[in-house]
């Protein structure tokens, strides 16, 4: 393992320079890069990448990284926000993950995106450990942006329960995932269960899935890993969105990953003054809860669940 300072985030005189480290393994070849946290609340993403650094350090020492294979892991580029409890850039609230491919002469977060992208460009494979713009719990999955350049089948090699393909919207075109693909890296977003808290089991699952991907592509040997799941590929447009019409306290009845029946009550919206049920949220059809909003109170006309039908 070689640790290099990719760049420093510098806002002197009142904040001290913060290093952004890249951890390099194997050869000089640009085989696979993993980006951890970019936003200031992506603790789970940072931890998952950190566990990967730990595992790869051990595997490299044991000689288990084989062939002409070079790996890079950047655990965190969001320290400046993390240390002051902000999700986005503290001065202007801009999101680095909406600034790619970045611009070296532009605004602060464009410059940071550019520096991150300089380090990540040119790899054959790219994995971004990321979080959604809505807070909630997911079944761990791989997400591929359907740009026309992608190889969907490789998303199955992680052995996570699901592979979701998504048609990009205009606001997706400035994300790392989208631009990485445009620059010809085969890119996957890896979503674990949590974002702003550490879920040990889910972090382990995500780390294992990356090692599994490396093994299946012949870059690791003799690494004992859990079997992994037979990944089911689902297009995002086939997910069933379940929305609410009332605002109030949100009480979930069934956790993420549950199999639910058509008509089954999966959450209640409760009156915040009287605790009476204002709305029963029912599954419109049989399926698996793929995404559940993580919120104590919720406004009307909002996504509460996404269901994988069947």
């Amino acid at each position, binding site marked *: 393992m070689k640790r290099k300072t990719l760049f420093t985030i*510098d*806002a*002197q*005189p*009142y*904040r001290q320079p913060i290093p952004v480290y890249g951890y390099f393994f194997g050869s000089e070849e640009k085989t696979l890069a993993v980006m951890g946290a970019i936003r200031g609340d992506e603790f789970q993403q940072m931890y998952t990448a950190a566990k990967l650094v730990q595992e790869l350090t051990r595997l490299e020492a044991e000689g288990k990284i084989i062939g002409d294979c070079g790996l890079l892991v950047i655990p965190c580029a969001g320290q400046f926000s993390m240390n002051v409890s902000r*999700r986005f850039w503290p*001065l*202007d*609230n801009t*999101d680095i993950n*909406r600034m790619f491919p970045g611009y070296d*002469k*532009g*605004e*602060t*977060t*464009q*410059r*940071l995106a550019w520096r991150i992208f300089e380090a990540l460009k040119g790899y054959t494979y790219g994995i971004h450990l990321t979080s959604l*713009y*809505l807070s909630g719990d997911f079944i761990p999955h791989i997400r591929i942006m359907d740009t026309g350049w992608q190889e969907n089948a490789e998303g199955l090699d992680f052995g996570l329960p699901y592979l979701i393909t998504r048609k990009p*919207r*205009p*606001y997706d*075109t*400035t994300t790392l995932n989208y631009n990485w693909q445009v620059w010809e890296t085969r890119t996957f977003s890896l979503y674990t269960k949590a974002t702003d808290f550490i879920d040990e089991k889910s972090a382990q699952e995500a780390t294992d899935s990356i090692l599994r991907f490396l093994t299946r592509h012949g870059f690791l040997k003799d690494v004992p890993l859990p079997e992994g799941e037979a990944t089911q590929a689902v297009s995002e447009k086939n997910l069933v*969105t379940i*929305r609410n019409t*009332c*605002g*109030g*306290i949100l009480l979930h009845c069934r956790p993420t990953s549950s199999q639910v029946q058509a008509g089954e009550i999966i959450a209640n919206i409760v009156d*915040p*003054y009287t605790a009476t049920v204002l709305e029963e949220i029912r599954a419109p059809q049989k399926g698996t809860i793929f995404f559940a909003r993580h919120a104590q*109170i*919720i*406004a*009307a*006309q*909002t*996504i509460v669940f996404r269901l994988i039908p069947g």
Partner: protein
Amino acid sequence: MIEEVVSAHLPVGETLRIQKNRIEGAEPKKRRLAIVTGTHGDELEGQYVAWQLARVLKKRQPLLRGTVDIYPALNPLGISTIYRGLPGFDLDMNRIFPGSSEETMYEYIAGGIIEDIAGADLCIDIHASNIFLREIPQVRINEQSAEMLLPLAKFLNMNFLWVHSAATVLESTLAYSLNSLGTPTLVVEMGVGMRITKSYGDQLITGILSVMSQLFMLEEPCPPVAPPIVSTDGNVAFVNANASGIFIPRVRHEERVEEGQLLGLIADPLSGGVREELHSPASGLIFTLREYPVVNEGSLIARILGGAL
């Protein structure tokens, strides 16, 4: 008449209601002008325009033909929390149009707003700058819709029309969405966040009355307006800080500068030193100038409109 545009229940005992002020003259269905503002909760220049325009139009009601709808707050929760964005939501409101009834509350609200404005003869979307930058009164036009919008924009009494290049990410703005639905929409930028610059507001109101005369919505002669400078991206030079610190300007907003002239310093109050001197890359007009003193490396300091002025 105050009318509801779209609404949704908030979690605890309150309704998020987007409202408009509808002012009708003779033949109200014949023409419709939409004045919208307050997409970004920290931009308040449009608040004065909405208020003052309603008063001016009420006085001129006998001369008014058609309907003027004034939407003073597309993002009421942002305004009430001194927050640029949508409280509790990651995406900027001007990145979720044309909205959707399949996603979140804010996208549902955005969809209702588009539905209400679509079909107007003209929409004017008023933005201030953010809290960081002060802007001269200007209209920003996407090059894709320049042909349709430039003739009307020239009557808006703004100093500067900036025709900018098309970026995919801008396809989710209110203006892009309305323009692609065939509702001509002009984006005004002026002043600074969290403040009201009355002179700019009055200047825009004169422009709105002038455009209304052009659209035959006011039976009075067009108030005289000065022709704006029309420019593309190629004439605009950017100055960004390369060091962090405190910006001390050495020029004033709306001032003309020479190439190489000192625009300001990035000061280091801890040591009493100067971390950077910023010089103008071109001769021209400072149409954007940093207002908020704290800067990070990369922060925009100024934009200079070059060329013969």
